[in-house]
């Protein structure tokens, strides 16, 4: 069981200057380990999200490979990759990710119904909502929630499938002290249960929950 990045690199075309590229992530080797939280910090624009997105299967590296149990994610076709990601990778992207037509509870249950016709796991979803302290909001629509509450909803959703890999991009952004603690505790518990967690954060407090801390700058680990 492993998720490895093998010299992944990402270039973006530089706006304005034609035919010139900007390397957001220089070739990096990187492994996630079961039971561990690996934290990546670094200045804004240092390439943290780019690396995390490549690992999660939604951003194809310019070169290098991302291997899940030995399979290069980016050689799979869309159906195979999507199913694999749905089952194995819990992704907490940056920003808001709610579907406005669904309740908070339904939003959390969403990953479970994409490929399965068995009833949505209501109990599991409620349990996670309780752990991120949103149980009262379960039947509200996303429009009625604050940004911080929607971040916590995204955390609950990413943990729903009990995936082997949890990739969290600033999951505590915009949260108050108390909620940062409950989210970090939840991620810690998830790692203790055997998942491999990648945590991208600015939060100083996160450090004491992490097993290993890496810092990025200019697209490299330093």
């Amino acid at each position, binding site marked *: 069981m492993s998720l490895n990045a093998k010299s992944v690199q990402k270039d973006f075309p530089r706006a304005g200057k034609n035919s010139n590229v900007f390397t957001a992530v220089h070739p990096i080797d990187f492994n996630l380990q079961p039971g561990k939280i690996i934290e990546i910090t670094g200045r804004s624009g240092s390439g943290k999200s780019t690396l995390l*997105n490549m690992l999660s299967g939604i951003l194809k590296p310019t070169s290098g490979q991302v291997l899940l149990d030995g399979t290069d994610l980016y050689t799979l076709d869309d159906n195979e990759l*999507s199913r694999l990601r749905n089952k194995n990778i819990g992704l907490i992207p*940056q920003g808001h990710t709610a579907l406005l037509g669904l309740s908070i509870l339904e939003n959390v249950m969403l990953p479970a*119904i994409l490929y399965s016709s068995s*009833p949505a796991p209501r109990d599991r979803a409620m349990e996670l909502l309780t752990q991120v302290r949103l149980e009262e909001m379960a039947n509200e629509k996303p429009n009625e929630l604050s940004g911080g509450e929607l971040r916590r909803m995204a955390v609950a959703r990413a943990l729903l499938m009990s995936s082997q890999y949890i990739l969290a991009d600033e999951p505590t952004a915009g949260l108050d002290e108390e909620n940062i603690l409950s989210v970090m505790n939840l991620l810690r518990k998830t790692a203790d249960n055997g998942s491999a967690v990648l945590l991208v954060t600015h939060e100083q407090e996160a450090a004491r929950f992490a097993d290993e801390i890496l810092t990025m700058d200019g697209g490299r680990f330093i």
Partner: protein
Amino acid sequence: MLTLKNLPVKNLNSYPGRTIAMLIFAGLMSAAVFGGMLIIRGLRQGLESVQSRLGADILVTPEDADNDFDAQTFLIQAEPGYFYMDASKLDQIRAVEGVETASPQMFLASATSSCCSAKLQIIAFDPDTDFTIQPWIRETFHGAQKLGKMDVIVGANVTVYDDHILRLYNNDCRVIGQFAPTGYSLDNAVYTDFETIKVLITSSFDTKLNKYQPFNTEDVISSVLVRVKNGYDAGDVANKIKNSVSGLNTTATKSMVSKIADSLSSISTSVHVFTIVILFVGALMTILIFLMMINERTREFASLRAMGASRNILSYIVIGEAVFINLLGGLIGIIASAVVIIGFSGVIREKLGIGFTPPSPRHIIIPAFFGIVVALLAAVAACLAAVKRVNRLDVSLVLKEGE
């Protein structure tokens, strides 16, 4: 319950404005196709039945009946009328060159008074010579129906109660059958034979409700229906009748019907143009509104991708939303237009000035099918662009942008 199947419908909850706008356009499209087909069909059917019902080439009426008979409006005007001429005219008409068959009819109108069930046009035919009403009876009742004394057959618009008795000038007439609708004034009439109408006319004198002075019913007729011989022109024969027999008016029935046919073809042209405009505007708006809605939701679709939804699932959601809206809108359009057309067929007939037969349930199915198909085609067109759009999403970039 949350399932992938009902996800498209749940998604639409959060976009009520756009959803309703799309429903309206889908409804307009299906209503235009469905309603247009029904109206044209109803008009054609009316024309066909009136053509076969008239069955004669020339209609001869007394000259002094002008106030009671107008060939232009006879077929669409519901107001009953009656007039008489000397029965001897019949033989004179038969003697005119080119006349093959001439059959007399007698008219009477019942009154709005306690003596009668309702104010109705009564038309009597001569069973020995009639060639218009009896074929109609044979066709409707498959030959089995025979008019006995005081028996009548009624048009489609005549109300008949359970006892099958129609009271006409204090006579109980037995209703032995009812014709299918033609959409024309023929539907408002009561049909019987000479023997019965003579009794009714005599009773109308007894009740003093006839506008004429009492006369011997054996001596009069109201009109004569003429069929011309092969090789003769109906117009020419009509002129000959007019010139050789005094006190008559003649109308070539072809000219009555051809006026109707003319207005029918101009109405159906308008209906077609109108339908095409609605379809064009409706399809365009459906595509635009749907694309706008999908565009506004790129972040939702990117989020679905982030949790592992494949492109196929995204396509399913997009198609499901469009198909659901347009199926529902199409159904609403069809129901609304069916209610309007059936409920207001009288008004439609009046406004169009030609006969219109409201459709039977059996005839609703095919236009309804086409109405739904048109709404669905618009959904498919909207999906073609929208599916492309969601499948080309740069998930990582979209999720970054929304911050």
